[in-house]
């Protein structure tokens, strides 16, 4: 299958300390890829490189056959929830979701009817249509997370990238969100960054373990041994049958 994201021998550092070392990764179309790894292992950095928000020190990244910056508008991005600290901003759910249409609509003036229909569709998909007019400051963590996902879906992306989409929300909501992503996966490539390898292994096709260096595993390979290598300490793992 054709690869939508091709990363070859990428190195990156913010200061002198390397964050990513010789990372190579090829993501085929319509894959559901999980990226796991310890804190400061370079997960968010890799995402930002794929989005073209950062430039690699060396190596190449191609997204949909183009430079990442050129492929941006065809990618949907859900930022990490704790870094999204503008909850006091005076804006409601609908206007936030509509921002996903920027880059497609006319440059001047307001949103078109099509934009509003697409935004409504995205809100329906994540079941937040009933709170469309609520200010985002009044939402719960789970609701805000759905708003951010709806905003990314409103981009009608070919690739959807989510950075820790289920941090700070309870297990039940987490299952809902991953179930939803699984549905979208049949026409969309999805990349999810998570710290919770046990949970996501039930949904994703493949897991990329990232701690400066990147190693990929198919989900049935995930064992305590691999996690131990990745995190450097023994971990207890609960096997759950799906």
């Amino acid at each position: 299958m054709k690869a939508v994201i091709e990363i070859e021998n990428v190195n990156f550092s913010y200061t002198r300390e390397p964050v990513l070392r010789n990372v190579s990764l090829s993501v085929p179309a319509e894959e559901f890829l999980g990226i796991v790894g310890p804190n400061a292992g370079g997960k968010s950095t890799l995402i930002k490189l794929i989005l073209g928000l950062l430039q690699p020190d060396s190596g190449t990244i191609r997204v949909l056959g183009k430079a990442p910056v050129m492929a941006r508008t065809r990618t949907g991005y859900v930022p990490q929830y704790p870094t999204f600290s503008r909850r006091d901003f005076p804006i409601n759910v609908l206007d936030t979701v509509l921002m996903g249409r920027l880059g497609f609509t006319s440059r001047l003036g307001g949103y078109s009817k099509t934009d509003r229909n697409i935004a409504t569709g995205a809100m329906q998909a994540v079941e937040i249509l009933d709170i469309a007019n609520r200010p985002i400051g009044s939402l719960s963590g789970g609701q805000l997370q759905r708003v951010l996902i709806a905003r990314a879906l409103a981009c009608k992306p070919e690739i959807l990238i989510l950075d820790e989409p289920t941090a700070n929300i309870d297990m039940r909501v987490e299952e809902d969100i991953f179930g939803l992503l699984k549905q979208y996966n049949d026409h969309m490539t999805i990349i999810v960054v998570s710290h919770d390898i046990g949970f996501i292994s039930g949904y994703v096709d493949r897991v990329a373990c990232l701690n400066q260096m990147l190693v990929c595993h198919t989900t049935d390979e995930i064992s305590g041994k691999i996690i131990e290598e990745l995190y450097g300490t023994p971990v207890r793992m609960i096997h759950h049958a799906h």
Partner: protein
Amino acid sequence: MINFITEIFSYSFMQHALLGCLLASVGCGIIGTYVVVKRIGFMAGGIAHSVLAGMGIAYFMGASPLAGAMISALIAAVLIAWINLRWRQHEDILIAAFWSVGMAIGVIFISRTEGYNIDLMSYLFGNILLVTTRDLYLMLILDIVILVLVVLFYRQFLAAAFDEEFSRLRGINVEFYYILLLCMVALTVVLLIQVVGLILVLALLILPAASAAQFVSSIKRMMLLSVIFSALITATGLIISYEPDLPSGSTIIILAGMFYILSIIAQGLIKKFRNT
């Protein structure tokens, strides 16, 4: 009371002053909203104070101080935006430098200017009673420029203020809109210098918008409400200051401060009332 108000507005200088307040309120409410939600109040303060450099130089050369103010405000805005985009971590130092170096340059040029010593106080603290018809036209033009830009690029300004990273991913030139926003802040500062002077500008730019933020949850409504608040505050300040011959700019600012405190209390009461 009504008689008193109709009486004082029978003077043409008071009519001009009131019109000046209302015109300034339009730009003030709209741009003040962005300044508050984007938390760039002190950047606006830096631009405002550095304006004295332009005013001083213009006065020294015998040109219009207001033209000097406009030019230096725009230069300061572009420079602050540009330097800040490159070396973001030194924002506070940058603002402090523009703030006081700008004022120092202004004071030097004013002190070197021949002839009778100008009323420095009216630049610093404003004097809306001295506003001329030409000033009013200039204010009207500045309002129109601000309104047109905000209507055309409303979504881009909103997105860039709300979530820079996401806006960038949607293909919005975040840097361009940041510089454009600071230029509009600069124009608004010039607009408000007439009313309250460059030292007090900051309060009038921020307080009506911050008061409005207590009651609404959309940028559009916040803009509308802060225009209304600032018109109310400036007009009331003007009327109150007239009889005891108080400095109008300072009266307006004290009112703005009181208004802000009252709106916080009112918001608290509304919350309490809703919960019970």
